[in-house]
């Protein structure tokens, strides 16, 4: 009887499309043949199976959270060598283990071993998260549970469904990469200045917070997890606090995180005041008027958008992400923003049951602005990590854009297209997590080797650090969405979504969406330009500083391994996107009740989101084609042995001679055309002062050029608010004059007024 196998394949719900092509025909027979005449024992089996799956999946998820906690706690032992030694004396271990332990616990080895242990546990939690995610995506059902914490009448509700599972996947992959990368990176910190205990503890809490946010199923628990995430990451941002700029960034970050959290609380509050209870199930039942729903939506957008960093409330992001240790920046920029996206999706598509197309338009416009603004700001940054942070703003903008499209289609009654949009957004979130982690970790390596993040100090590193440069190149290619890499696939899907605009009736939308799609194209092109600049300035040309002249390939294998892992995934999912699409179909199914027809027609090598007639893309074929063409030309052109070798010669210097590194194009030179074309976007402060000398002061002795490019949001949005609060405080301060008679006067007047009030 084939049932068990089929169940195993199709998970809990036999009406799902299978993810394995091989069993499809059998599955179809099962669905349409004798499905409803299924023998009784099938259902019994299924229920047992379900229980088992429930336990397994939830245990995996919990284990992931616990491991991240454990790694944090473990990090606290960094200074407790003696006590740990005493403790371990007690536990009985046989010979070999004992020797090994003693070896680990020697004065010299202990810190290193402990750090390794911490990161191993962290990686374990990442691994478990990945497994849990895959498991829940496979068994296409939601597992709920309750933890006996929280309020007496409101224990923590846990719900682990496909959406959470997918984001578990994202978090897990990133955490694994980071924990491979970590040990090599943290060696650089000396203990007394930057205690590892702090770093390890809050890293663990940070990861745990993110995972708990994904698990939360009631507003209270959600907010606790959310704030745990924010606060832990705040401590990580402030980790290198000797630098005032970092402190300022950390404060700004925490402040905006707080404001955002308050907005989210208020949003939940609006829902809760129409529902009974705070569990998400109760909130789903809340039926509120369009006005209140829109208020809730705006609040949620403000809150989650602030965390996700959409323009104009993105200001904390480029400040905070660069100053954290690189693997933390990778987590923040690559994963935490996704958690915010998760929150928005959960709030809008799950809790607010009926969406309105106006919300979609808001998301679309905001997303477009963020995408363009993000990449344009990124282009002007000389600091690599700042640049990457701004490009995160851009990618988040793209994600919001596509979410907006999904909402619009949803509200206009095209659930399938909505599914397409949602899928594109989630896929892009996934990809961005991959390549942004890759790039941030790469930046970490550069900082580690060159002790600077200023792109203008680098150059020519491709010869010094061949592996890093290659992996970084892959990152750049996928982020600037070139074919064969994952970034392209999600943007392709985004374009496909936008192209379905013809089904809409509303003329405004029909003309707005293509324009924003064109803006998306502009964004992609600008991103390509930006990352050409990045790679070219860092790795190509001549070294611009002594550090980069003497730079060496990083010797720690783990750091490179992490990069290799991520780069490999970028490429892999660029070639086999269908794997992710299949997983995402479950999410779409759960949220919108629709899946793509993708796997109806195609096998694993084709990607045809709407229908083969409308659009199709087969990365694998393209890859094969490129390989063939490359190989053939390569072989054909170099078959002649005496012209095969290339002759090296001096670079053409127009006959002047003395070509040196300072004659190269620099960052600001490269982006000068953009600066002139989009001049309005920035606050540009450009100063050239010359020192004249010689007779009549005619000839220039030296020229200094200073360029400062600033965000518009500061003077327009933030300084007014800060100023307002300060002046309000000064006004209020007036009442406390310090004279006791005035104080007596206050209580006298208060008394009189109150008496008058009550005797009315």
């Amino acid at each position, binding site marked *: 009887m084939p049932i068990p196998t089929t169940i195993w394949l199709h998970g809990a719900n036999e009406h799902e499309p299978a993810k394995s092509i091989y069993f499809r025909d059998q599955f179809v027979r099962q669905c349409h043949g004798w499905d409803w005449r299924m023998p009784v024992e099938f259902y019994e089996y299924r229920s047992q199976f379900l229980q088992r799956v429930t336990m397994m999946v939830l245990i995996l998820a919990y284990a992931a959270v616990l491991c991240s906690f454990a790694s944090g706690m473990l990090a606290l032992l960094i200074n407790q060598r003696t006590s740990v030694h005493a403790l371990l004396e007690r536990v009985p271990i046989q010979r070999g283990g004992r020797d090994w332990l003693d070896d680990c616990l020697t004065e010299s080895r202990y810190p290193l071993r402990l750090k390794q242990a911490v990161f191993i546990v962290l990686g374990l939690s990442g691994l478990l998260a990945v497994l849990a995610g895959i498991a829940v995506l496979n068994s296409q059902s939601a597992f709920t549970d309750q933890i006996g914490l929280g309020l007496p009448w409101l224990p923590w509700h846990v719900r682990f469904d496909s959406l959470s599972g997918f984001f578990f996947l994202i978090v897990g992959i990133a955490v694994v990469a980071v924990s491979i990368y970590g040990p090599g990176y943290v060696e650089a910190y000396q203990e007394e200045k930057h205690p590892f205990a702090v770093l390890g503890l809050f890293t663990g809490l940070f990861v745990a917070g993110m995972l708990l946010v994904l698990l939360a199923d009631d507003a209270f628990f959600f907010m606790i997890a959310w704030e745990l995430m924010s606060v832990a990451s705040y401590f990580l941002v402030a980790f290198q606090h000797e630098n005032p700029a970092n402190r300022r960034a950390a404060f700004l970050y925490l402040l905006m995180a707080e404001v955002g959290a308050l907005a989210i609380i208020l949003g939940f509050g609006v829902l809760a005041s129409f529902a009974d209870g705070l569990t998400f199930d109760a909130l789903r039942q809340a039926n509120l008027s369009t006005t209140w729903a829109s208020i809730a939506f705006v609040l949620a957008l403000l809150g989650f958008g602030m965390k996700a960093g959409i323009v104009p409330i993105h200001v904390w992001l480029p400040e905070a992400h660069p100053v954290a240790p690189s693997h933390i920046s990778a987590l923040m920029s690559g994963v935490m923003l996704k958690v915010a996206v998760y929150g928005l999706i959960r709030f809008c598509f799950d809790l607010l049951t009926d969406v309105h197309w106006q919300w979609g338009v808001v998301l679309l416009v905001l997303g477009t602005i963020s995408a363009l603004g993000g990449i344009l700001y990124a282009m002007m940054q000389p600091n690599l990590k700042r640049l990457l942070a701004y490009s995160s703003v851009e990618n988040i903008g793209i994600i919001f854009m596509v979410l907006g499209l999904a909402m619009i289609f949803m509200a206009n009654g095209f659930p399938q297209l909505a599914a397409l949009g949602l899928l594109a957004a989630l896929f892009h979130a996934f990809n961005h997590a991959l390549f942004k982690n890759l790039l941030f970790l790469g930046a970490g390596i550069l900082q580690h080797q060159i002790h600077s993040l200023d792109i203008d100090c680098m150059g020519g590193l491709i010869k010094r650090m061949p592996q890093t440069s290659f992996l970084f190149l892959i990152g750049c290619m996928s982020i600037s969405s070139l074919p064969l890499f994952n970034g392209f696939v999600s943007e392709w899907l985004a374009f496909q979504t936008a192209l379905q605009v013809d089904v809409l009736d509303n003329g405004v939308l029909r003309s707005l969406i293509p324009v924003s799609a064109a803006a998306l194209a502009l964004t992609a092109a600008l991103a390509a*330009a930006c990352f050409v600049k990045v790679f070219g300035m860092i790795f190509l040309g001549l070294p611009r500083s002594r550090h980069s002249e003497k730079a060496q390939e990083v010797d720690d294998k783990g750091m490179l391994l992490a990069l290799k892992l991520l780069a490999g995934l970028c490429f892999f999912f660029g070639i086999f996107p269908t794997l992710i699409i299949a997983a995402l179909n479950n999410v779409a199914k759960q949220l919108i009740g629709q899946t793509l027809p993708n796997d109806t027609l195609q096998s694993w090598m084709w990607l045809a989101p709407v229908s083969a007639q*409308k659009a199709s893309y087969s990365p694998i074929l393209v890859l094969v084609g490129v390989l063939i063409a490359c190989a053939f030309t390569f072989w054909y052109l170099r078959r002649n042995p005496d012209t095969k070798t290339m002759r*090296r*010669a001096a670079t053409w210097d127009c006959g002047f001679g003395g070509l040196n590194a300072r004659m190269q194009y620099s960052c600001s030179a490269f982006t000068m055309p953009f600066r*002139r074309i989009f001049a309005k976007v920035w606050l540009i402060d450009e100063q050239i002062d010359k020192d004249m000398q010689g007779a009549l002061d005619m000839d220039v002795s030296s020229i200094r050029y200073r360029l400062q490019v600033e965000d518009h949001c500061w003077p327009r949005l933030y300084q007014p608010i800060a100023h307002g609060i300060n002046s309000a405080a000064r006004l209020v301060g007036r009442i406390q004059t310090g004279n006791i008679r005035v104080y007596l006067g206050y209580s006298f007047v208060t008394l009189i007024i109150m008496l008058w009030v009550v005797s009315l």
Partner: protein
Amino acid sequence: MNWLLAIVQTLLFVALAPLLSGWLKWCKCHLQNRKAPSLLQPYRDLMKLIRKQPVVAEHASWIFTRSPYIIFSAMVLAASVVPLIAVDLPTAASADVIVLVGFFAFARFFLALAGLDIGTAFGGMGSSREMTISSLAEPAMLMAVFTLTMTASTTNLSLAIAHVLNEGLVLRPSFVFAMFALILVAIAETGRVPVDNPTTHLELTMIHEAMILEYSGRHLALIEWASQLKLMLYGVLIANIFWPWGIAQNFSIHALGYGLLAISGKLAALAVFLSISETLVAKMRLFRVQEYLSFAYLLGLLGMLSHIILEASR
């Protein structure tokens, strides 16, 4: 059979590309009262370059030496998805028009990197300008393409062309706008006058040439060939999308031959048009290119809007 045909057509594409530029040069010379080189001159140049031993700048890395192959094969792949003489090719399904744009981006990415690799001022200058122009051109192009794909409701090129073909001669204002937008974009992307001058010898005005200044031997050959391919690709796109008539819909020899004739005729005409315009118009300053391209974008937008409002209004 289809696959074979597709490959053959791709090869044909690659083979004919130098001829087109040769023809273009020929027309230009005659229009400017110069003595024209033979139509086969480009082939001779390529052969000569391929035979030579390449000389590479001392600081160049593998990016510099491998880019030509990548660029060339990207162009070949692009050629394989654009219907030249026949529609509904299997290759067209593997990559639609958006992927086509992706291929161009791919080639451009590596060309720009190669320009930066040697570490001269010119290389950087060329890459910077190239990226600027292309990033401005991309939205305009996408607008034009959208107009087409929304009309044909597909992004698969050969299906779109087949759609235009089957519905016969329909006067679509959107197509007029889209075509002009695409032509302007094509001129910008292929580095022709007035945006860039392929024959210039003054480094400061160079864009495309500045990037490949250091190339020689087979590398230069590949790059040249790739740019000729690009020119032809745009030509074929414009020709086959807006006047698809004559393209083969079944694979009979007679139909194919007819299709070959048709496309060469269209391309020849386009080349004449291009050479006339290049003779009449002078190259413009770099920072007026943005106006030029935004005008292209405007045209594309008008095309889109007229499609939405005039043609498919509900």
